[in-house]
């Protein structure tokens, strides 16, 4: 589903490479944790998958296509296959929960009838039934992150990317979010999540890829956060 072949990338004006010769292969349906110290390149890895950044060397394949050779007008189509969730939720404060989720479908031109069908369905899936009419600041942080996940998942993407989705949440709320991501993963969606949260990684026992200074230093199929190789 996602394949990195000798990928290196350096941000403009930087000396140090953000990623150096990374080789990773993630299969369809996998659940992968991306761990590593601050600045180790986790977010950069995710940006490459979304083609928000491009590698200086090597190739990035997503859903069978080499995305760096892709014409830029095809990038929107790529991104429709990928749902994305961030630490800071990124909800529109002036839209209700349901409108926030619907927005993701409207702007890619889905018909209204389809939107009216799948939005309540997805809100139920993430555990927000009956809260569609609330505004984002009327619900808790955990619920806001559920809205963000609903928005990312409402178009049923093949891949779900999450960059420290529990970074702003307390430990209890975080567990709920992880259960939801696990449920989404079990529908066949590939989940790739960057995190610092040792507790979560230790508990989930999924595949762990550890980055350090931009290189893969560990790739373990049922790993924990703190493992030292």
């Amino acid at each position, binding site marked *: 589903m996602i394949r990195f072949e000798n990928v290196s990338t350096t941000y403009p004006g930087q000396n140090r490479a953000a990623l150096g010769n990374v080789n990773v292969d993630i299969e369809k349906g996998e659940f992968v944790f991306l761990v590593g110290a601050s600045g180790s390149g986790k977010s950069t890895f995710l940006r490459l998958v979304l083609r928000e950044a491009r590698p200086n060397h090597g190739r990035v394949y997503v859903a069978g296509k080499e995305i760096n050779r892709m014409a830029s*007008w095809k*990038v*929107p189509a790529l991104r429709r296959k990928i749902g994305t969730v961030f630490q800071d939720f990124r909800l529109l404060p002036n839209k209700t929960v349901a409108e926030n989720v619907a*927005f993701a479908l409207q702007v*890619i*031109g889905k018909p209204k009838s389809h939107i009216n069908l799948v939005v309540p369905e997805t809100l139920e899936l993430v555990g927000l039934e009956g809260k569609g009419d609330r505004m984002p600041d009327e619900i808790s942080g955990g619920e806001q992150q559920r809205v963000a996940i609903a*928005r990312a998942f409402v178009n049923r993407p093949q891949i779900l990317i999450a960059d420290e989705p529990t970074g702003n949440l307390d430990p209890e709320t975080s567990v709920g979010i992880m259960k939801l991501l696990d449920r989404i993963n079990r529908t066949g969606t590939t989940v790739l999540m960057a995190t610092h949260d040792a507790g979560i990684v230790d508990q989930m026992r999924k595949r762990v890829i550890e980055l350090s200074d931009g290189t893969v230093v560990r790739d373990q199929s049922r790993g924990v956060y703190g493992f030292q190789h």
Partner: protein
Amino acid sequence: MQLKYVFSETGNGLKRNVSMTIALVVTIFISLTLVGLGLLLNAQANKAEDYWGSKLQISVVLCNQNSRSPHCTSGETNPAQQAAIVDILNTHPEVASYSYETKAQAFKTWKKIYVSKDAEERQIYAAVTENDMQNSYRVTLKDPQQYRGVESALSGMDGVDKVNDLRDVLQPILTTFNKMKWGALVVAAFLLLAAVLQVSNAIRLAAFARRKEIGIMRLVGASNLYISLPFLMETLVAAVIGVAGAALAVGGVMYFFVYGNLRPDLHVVEWVSWRDAGTALAEVAALGILATLIPTLVTTRKYLKV
């Protein structure tokens, strides 16, 4: 694509940036109005040049009985004096050609120009006879700028009442049209520059106000066109309002000034017509749309790129 979204976003964008939009519309409006007036003045200058073209000669006016010039002491110019004048005209290096206008011809022209609406003036004009006119030579010059030589040679001769240089009268009017044209166009150019820069500023501000939405749109895979269409529409609306305002302003000048004052009262020259105004406005509209669309496209590419 849901056009409803595009329209509602355009409306929201215009509302959100009311002050930016008004500033933009005003600048586009005034600059295009000035461009329009500049183009009209250009048409007017061309019309005047065509109309007066043949008149940019000098005319050597011979004496009649009423002449008071010191060279007309003997009254009507006599044949000997006239022969001397013709001699000069035939030999002077500045002269290309000349023709003779008799009193009768001059009287015909006079009657054509001096038509008055005023009853009393008409009475006075009616009292003018052919004999009040003067015979004259119409001299075409080799180089219209070189006329001082022949002018001074002739004006000192007996039998010459005066040497009229119509250019002394008409050239300043032409020059005035041209100066006004350039004045309007230079000011318009400044304001157009300001308008173009404001378009790109308006888009920067709008892109900033909408940065969250745009970020999410890019993330969930909205197409580039979909993201930038509201911006295009926003500046297009501003441009259309500006063009409409300029059309109204230029139309007002045509209706109240050209057709209301100049055409009925001032017959010195043929004035610009609605047709000329139409042409000018078509050019203004094209310019207005281009001057807003191009910076919009450039700026949206810069601030909204995938």
